[in-house]
């Protein structure tokens, strides 16, 4: 230590019995090869790795057997050479005791390494200090290194600090939890690798200094690290800092606070303070990976507790069954004893010992009942407040307990439940022996599940709304298509209608109708035009400036009126034609009651009767069963023939009578027609008379206006008036004569 480091303190914390002497008194031993290695695909935080080998494949030591899936993930390597015997769901070392996919390797005993070399050699560099940062990160990722302290966060991901500028690297060698000595032994025996790892990490992060925090109960480790520092000539960058022993000084946030006095904000990460924290074991693994190309395939695990005879640390291949390691250590299981993975404070009891050692397994604790008694039944909380004093995260464990128990999760969250590091200090000090941490874990899980459900509900809502939108859109499109089709069909229909109307006589009726409609339309248009011109005329008359336009308007008006008259005539003609059309079509071949048709019917019926009779005769001769049926048929046929005959005769008679009736009526018709014709004539005359009177009135008006204004047209108008008056007189004379008739 060459720098004077001002140490700080975090609130709370406890001093449980250390129990480290049992396992740190002898050097690390190498565990022997077990009969099979079970490698869960999910040994780290993030997505499980994706297997790249198949059952039956032979693999070499250090060969990749599973690739990372996504960014936050880590690959998996074969810890020894052998054969893949299975890829299946096996129980994994997790508090849940659930099964997950594992790759099972049957070792061949050769322990043959795959070809591997240090990154420096691989890149062919002269100076190993010049390795580019991205190559270093790639190597760390490829070697499957995940945080060895306990959480197992993929190291390469943690080293991607993004926008944060890092000035301090902290290596965590505190190892504060009782019983565990894996990091202690690693620092004693592999101090050089730890320092080398720190160098690499400093290079990657571009940090200025590195602090290695070690609790003062590990003097040998501190001495070894100091020696290694001198060896590596790194006294000026890296400091080994002795910190007081207190649980949980090895928590990331707590260690940062001790060494720098800075507090990681709630929900924040150390990188936001310019700090990155790594475990010493991770640093050693990084050194191995970069300098020698050895992936993370083994780790140091403490096996301790009074139930094992031979306590100590083992360098153990990942995937080694816990039972194998325990038997190497002389495990003598007694009644109701359990094996804990991790320490006594934060570890969890294993449901069975047939579980593999994984990247985060730092300790296997096999305590006797006397050594570590099972929890007593919890008693009521007496609100003593000891837990609040012990909490290293400055939370209110008691409040969190009440909220968790009552499942008031929102209140628990408001009391910063998620800042709880689950260190177990509160449960340790609790005089009522309430399993506080278990309550917090439950609350955290329930809140996470609630959040996931809310997210899923939101997703479902979006998908549902998208579906409704899509259905409406499709409906609208269909409707539009249907309309377009209907329009096209209507058009085709009208084209069809018009085409035969132009040619064929039989279809005269619809054509006549069409003509009639057209004429009526023209009439309406003309009438509208008349109305307009009349309005204009009025306006012109009132306005002296437009007076010169009056004659033009008048002529236009007269023209349109003429047009109306002709149109009216045309319409009348068209109407007559339309009426006469069906009448003309009357005596036609199409009439089913015409005598010709009836005659034909009669003849065919008679012919059928003949054949039926013949068949009957044949059948009678043969004595067939069908005789009766045939006879009935013949009778029916006879009836039909009779019917047809009578119908024909009737039609002939009616035809004749019709003709005679027409000829008889002809004379009377002529006379009556004259009288009928006379009536409309009289009406017409009356109408004409009225119209003529109108005209005379108008002519008089015009004349007066012209006189008043002193126009030149006075004479012409006078003449016109006289003419109109003459006409009127003539009409009146005619009307009087017709009226008399």
């Amino acid at each position, binding site marked *: 230590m060459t720098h004077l480091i001002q140490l700080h303190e975090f609130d709370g914390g406890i001093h449980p019995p250390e129990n480290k002497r049992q396992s740190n008194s002898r050097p690390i031993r190498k565990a022997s090869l077990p009969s099979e290695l079970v490698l869960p695909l*999910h040994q780290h935080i993030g997505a499980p790795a994706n297997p790249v080998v198949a059952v039956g494949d032979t693999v070499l030591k250090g060969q990749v057997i599973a690739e990372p899936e996504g960014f936050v993930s880590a690959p998996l390597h074969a810890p020894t050479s052998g054969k893949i015997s299975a890829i299946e769901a096996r129980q*994994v070392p*997790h*508090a*849940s005791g*659930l099964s*997950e996919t594992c790759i099972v390797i049957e070792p061949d005993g050769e322990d043959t390494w795959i070809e591997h070399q240090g990154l420096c050699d691989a890149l062919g560099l002269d100076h190993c200090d010049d390795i580019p940062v991205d190559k270093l990160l790639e190597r760390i990722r490829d070697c499957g290194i995940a945080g060895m302290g306990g959480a197992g966060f993929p190291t390469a991901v943690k080293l991607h600090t993004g926008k944060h500028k890092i000035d301090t690297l902290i290596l965590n060698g505190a190892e504060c939890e009782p019983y565990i000595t894996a990091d202690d032994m690693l620092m004693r025996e592999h101090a050089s690798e730890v320092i080398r790892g720190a160098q690499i990490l400093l290079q990657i992060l571009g940090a200025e200094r590195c602090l290695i925090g070690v609790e003062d109960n590990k003097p040998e480790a501190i001495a070894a690290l100091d020696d290694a520092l001198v060896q590596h000539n790194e006294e000026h960058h890296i400091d080994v800092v002795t910190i007081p022993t207190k649980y949980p000084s090895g928590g990331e946030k707590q260690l940062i606070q001790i060494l720098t006095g800075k507090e990681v904000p709630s929900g924040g990460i150390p990188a936001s303070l310019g700090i990155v924290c790594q475990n010493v074991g991770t640093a050693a693994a990084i050194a191995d990976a970069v300098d020698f190309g050895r992936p993370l395939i083994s780790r140091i695990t403490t096996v301790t507790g009074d139930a094992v005879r031979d306590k100590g640390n083992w360098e153990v291949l990942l995937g080694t069954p816990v039972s194998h390691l325990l038997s190497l250590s002389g495990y003598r299981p007694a009644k109701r004893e359990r094996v804990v993975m991790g320490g006594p404070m934060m570890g969890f009891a294993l449901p069975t010992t047939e579980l593999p050692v994984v990247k985060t397994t730092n300790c296997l604790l096999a305590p006797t009942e006397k050594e570590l008694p*099972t929890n*007593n*039944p*919890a*008693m*009521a909380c007496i609100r003593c407040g000891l837990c609040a004093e012990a909490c290293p995260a400055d939370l209110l464990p008691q409040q969190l307990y009440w909220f*968790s*128990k009552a*499942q008031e999760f929102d209140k628990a969250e408001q009391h910063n439940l998620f800042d709880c590091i689950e260190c177990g200090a509160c449960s340790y000090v609790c005089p009522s022996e309430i*399993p506080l941490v*278990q*309550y917090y*874990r*439950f609350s*955290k*899980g*329930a809140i*996470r*599940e609630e959040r*996931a*459900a809310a997210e*899923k*509900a*939101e*997703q*479902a*809502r979006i*998908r*549902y*709304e*998208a*579906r*409704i939108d899509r259905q409406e859109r499709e409906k609208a499109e269909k409707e539009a298509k249907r309309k377009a089709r209907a329009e096209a069909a209507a058009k085709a229909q009208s084209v069809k209608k018009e085409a035969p109307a132009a040619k064929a006589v039989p279809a005269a009726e619809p054509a006549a109708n069409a003509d009639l409609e057209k004429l009526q339309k023209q009439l309406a248009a003309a009438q509208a035009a008349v109305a307009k011109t009349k309005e204009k005329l009025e306006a012109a008359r009132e306005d002296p400036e437009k007076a010169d336009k009056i004659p033009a308007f008048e002529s236009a008006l007269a023209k349109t009126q003429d047009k109306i008259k002709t149109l009216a005539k045309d319409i009348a003609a068209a109407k007559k034609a339309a009426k006469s059309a069906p009448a003309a079509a009357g005596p036609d071949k199409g009439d089913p009651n015409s005598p010709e048709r009836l005659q034909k019917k009669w003849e065919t019926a008679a012919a059928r009767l003949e054949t039926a009779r013949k068949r009957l005769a044949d059948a009678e001769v043969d004595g067939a069963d069908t005789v009766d049926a045939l006879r009935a048929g013949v009778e029916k046929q006879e009836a039909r023939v009779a019917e047809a005959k009578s119908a024909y005769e009737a039609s002939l008679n009616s035809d004749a009578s019709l003709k005679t009736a027409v000829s008889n009526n002809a004379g009377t018709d002529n006379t009556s027609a004259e009288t009928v014709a006379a009536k409309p004539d009289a009406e017409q005359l009356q109408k004409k008379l009225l119209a003529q009177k109108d005209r005379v009135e108008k002519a008089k008006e015009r004349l007066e206006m012209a006189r008043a204004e002193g126009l030149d047209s006075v004479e012409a108008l006078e003449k016109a008036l006289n003419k109109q008056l003459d006409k009127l007189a003539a009409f009146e004379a005619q009307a009087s004569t017709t009226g008399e008739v």
Partner: protein
Amino acid sequence: MSTIIIAIVVLASLAALFGALLGFASVRFRVEGNPVVDQVNDLLPQTQCGQCGFPGCKPYAEAIADGEKINKCPPGGESTIQALADLLGVEPEPLDAEHGAEKDVPMVAYIREDECIGCTKCIQACPVDAILGAAKQMHTVIVDECTGCDLCVEPCPVDCIDMVPQSTDTSSWYWQAPTTGVELIATDRRSLKTEAHA
């Protein structure tokens, strides 16, 4: 006299000013639609199962805003009823059994793919498009999108759809709350401990 006039003028002008301000705010910050509907909709589980008798969660939310009962959502269960009661300020009622019972475990649809004939009926029934497939092709459920609403089960002509409980893995598992038995006082504790040892 002048003070009274000044006071009246000041108050009148203030009234006019605030009136204008409020009028402007009511136009500028106008909320489209009924915000209660969205709040209610956010509380509903969005399974779109139609067990409430409405064609989806949004229509039920609209109905609740119009005074419909809040106890018709079996997938939401008691917690949803409680949340709705809190939001709307009404008394929570027990779940209406007529619409079905609350399930303990979230379910997910599973198509036995060997038996699927590819009729697409379930695809048309799924309210969240969580079934993948085409006519005369095998169909399958996108588990992450399935809300477990049951609506695909009934239309299947070959009955190849099962509702299975959602499986938990190590990432979705979490610790359960400690079983709170009788909480003991100190004198009871000793006897219980000796019992445990025996």
